């Protein structure tokens, strides 16, 4: 029983969040922050697979998020929306079709990552970085030229699915309030994502990934099929990012190709390097910290307080929170790189730092 303490705690936390959200103790804003936290965890852990565990340098991760978001949105509108004609499925089916839709988006994103995986057989770090940036631009540009998903105007209608889920909820579950379905699925998918990555890294395949990171030539000689390892790793990473994109689309209810540009990829990279390369728990912690920071720095009062010396000297300068935020976060990261370049955790897991934790959890 002791071994499952941590898992039970996590399950309790999830149930507590759902109950609090349903009885409106957590308002929509806090729910949205929690959901973005989950999506950020998925993004950072999946990018950590490539950038940390495999040692390749990818800076176009948002491309796969974009593919997943669009595929999931189109499927969702096809099944339950009325944008492309009548809904294909009854609204009652929505809450078990929804995860399938998200997973399909992830699957298409995984297939699209072959664009990156194939050149990675021959190319090395900097050249591969370019290829990923190019793929990011290509995906955005391709979607902007598709008129049936609205091009650069963006695409909406995914909220129909969410409403279908809310409307068809059985009365014993929801009572008088709306049941927070999207929050439930974000929590489930985040758990799924962490579980998959953890299982993958600790498997024989994952040892191969580590071998590719340490020394590719030696790994090849020791009969590791590096091309296969790279392909599988890229596909898992991109697939999870695609799932994150699908959830992102359903949380916001609107997707735009420009919201998946290089800046989004940079955000994911910031989270990975803040947490420490190749550390799963580091990626999770840093994603939570990063989401929290973004929301804290959104408050104009805090920014005004921090900028008080500057505004005292220049009285007519009015710093806006949205802009100063993006000066402070990079500044913080630069300072972290100067004084603790290995990030929050470095190459260690939480259980390496606190060995006693091993008694309290198990990942099976």
């Amino acid at each position, binding site marked *: 029983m002791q071994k499952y303490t941590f898992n039970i705690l996590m399950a309790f936390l999830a149930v507590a969040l759902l109950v609090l959200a349903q009885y409106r103790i957590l308002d929509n804003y806090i729910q949205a922050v929690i959901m973005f936290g989950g999506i950020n965890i998925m993004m950072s852990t999946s990018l950590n697979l490539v*950038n940390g565990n495999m040692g390749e*340098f990818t800076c176009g991760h948002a491309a796969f998020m974009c593919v997943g978001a669009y595929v999931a949105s189109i499927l969702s509108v096809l099944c339950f929306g009325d944008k492309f004609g009548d809904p294909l499925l009854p609204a009652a089916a929505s809450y078990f079709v929804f995860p399938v839709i998200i997973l399909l988006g992830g699957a298409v994103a995984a297939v699209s990552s072959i*664009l990156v995986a*194939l*050149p990675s057989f*021959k*190319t*090395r770090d*900097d*050249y591969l*970085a*370019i*290829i990923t*940036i*190019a*793929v990011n*631009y*290509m995906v*955005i*540009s*391709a979607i*902007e*030229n598709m008129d049936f998903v609205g*091009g*650069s105007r963006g695409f909406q209608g995914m909220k129909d699915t969410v409403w279908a889920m809310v409307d068809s909820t059985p009365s014993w579950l929801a009572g008088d309030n709306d049941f927070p379905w999207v929050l439930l699925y974000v929590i489930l998918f985040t758990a799924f994502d962490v579980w998959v990555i953890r299982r993958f890294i600790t498997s024989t395949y994952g040892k191969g990934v580590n071998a590719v990171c340490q020394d590719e*030539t*030696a790994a090849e*000689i020791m009969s590791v099929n590096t091309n296969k390892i790279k392909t599988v790793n890229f596909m898992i990473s991109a697939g999870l990012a695609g799932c994150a994109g699908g959830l992102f689309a359903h949380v916001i209810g609107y997707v735009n190709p420009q919201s998946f540009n*290089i800046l989004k990829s*940079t955000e994911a*990279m*910031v989270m990975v*390097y803040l947490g420490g*390369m190749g550390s799963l728990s580091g990626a999770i912690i840093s994603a939570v910290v990063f989401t929290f920071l973004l929301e804290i720095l959104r408050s104009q009062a805090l920014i005004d307080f921090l900028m008080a010396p500057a505004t005292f000297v220049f009285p007519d*300068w009015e*710093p*806006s929170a949205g*802009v*100063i935020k*993006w*000066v402070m976060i*990079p*500044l913080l*990261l*630069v300072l972290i*790189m*100067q004084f603790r*370049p290995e990030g929050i955790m470095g190459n260690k897991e939480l259980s390496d730092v606190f060995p006693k934790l091993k008694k309290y959890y198990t990942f099976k």
Partner: protein
Amino acid sequence: MDFIIQNIINALQWGSFYALIALGYTLVYGVLRLINFAHGDIFMVGAYIAFFVAGFMLGPALGLSPMATFLLAVPLTMFLTACVGVTLERIAYRPLRRKGAHRLYVVITALMCGLILEYSNLAVLGASRLKFPELVHKTIWNMGGVTVTNLKVIVIVAAVAVFVILNFIVTKTKIGMAMRGISYDKFAIPLMGIPIDQIIVFTFILGSGFAGLAGLLFAMSYPVLEPFMGMIIGWKAFIAAVVGGIGDIRGAFYGGFLLGFIEVGVVTVFPSTYRDLFAFTILLIILWMKPTGLFGMPQSTKI
């Protein structure tokens, strides 16, 4: 025929900007093995510095004529932008290099420095776009249906001149020899009595100075300044440098012009929204065929 020649001239101008910025990328990469992602934003800073320099000189304090302003603004902008680049190297990259940090950490620091430059600019100067004053009076020569403005000629000549100067510095002078030496073997060079830090600072002076020149010329050609103007063009110039083979000056030059030709060619045939898609697809194919770029040397690993 006129149409084709006109487009070739436009592509030469567009490629010149890419080539100028790609040269800066390549110089820093060749010496330090560092992708200086802040380079595109240094280009942006150069354009803004040019704006303030020109505004000061044309203003009531000095009241110079536009032509004299242009001639004075070129060295001044290059000097000030080089100062920005060297400051960046001094406060962000050098401590990391001294510690022997992982290469990727330096790259992330560079990315973040670029973001800081963009957003601090946005915070200080606001989101309103600035209008660059006209320095060189525009003269248009018509040659049988082909229009050439004097600005285009200035830009193309500047790019070629910078390429020739850099080629001369790197291949014929002592400091260029030191640069090539550092990129060949970073550990043996200090033992030969070569001051490695000075060489690296000189590299940053060169790269940032030419980025400043590119910023000035860009602001003169497309006279609207905004804080994010360096982002897209910086990424694309970096891609051009890689396609040419990063670390190779010829490669950066030809890669920049290649990218310019591809983009202008796509825009003439297809709708302009397809520009990025086709340009990047072609570049991906080139990299897939030649993984180390057009002029890059394949690296062999000893086992």
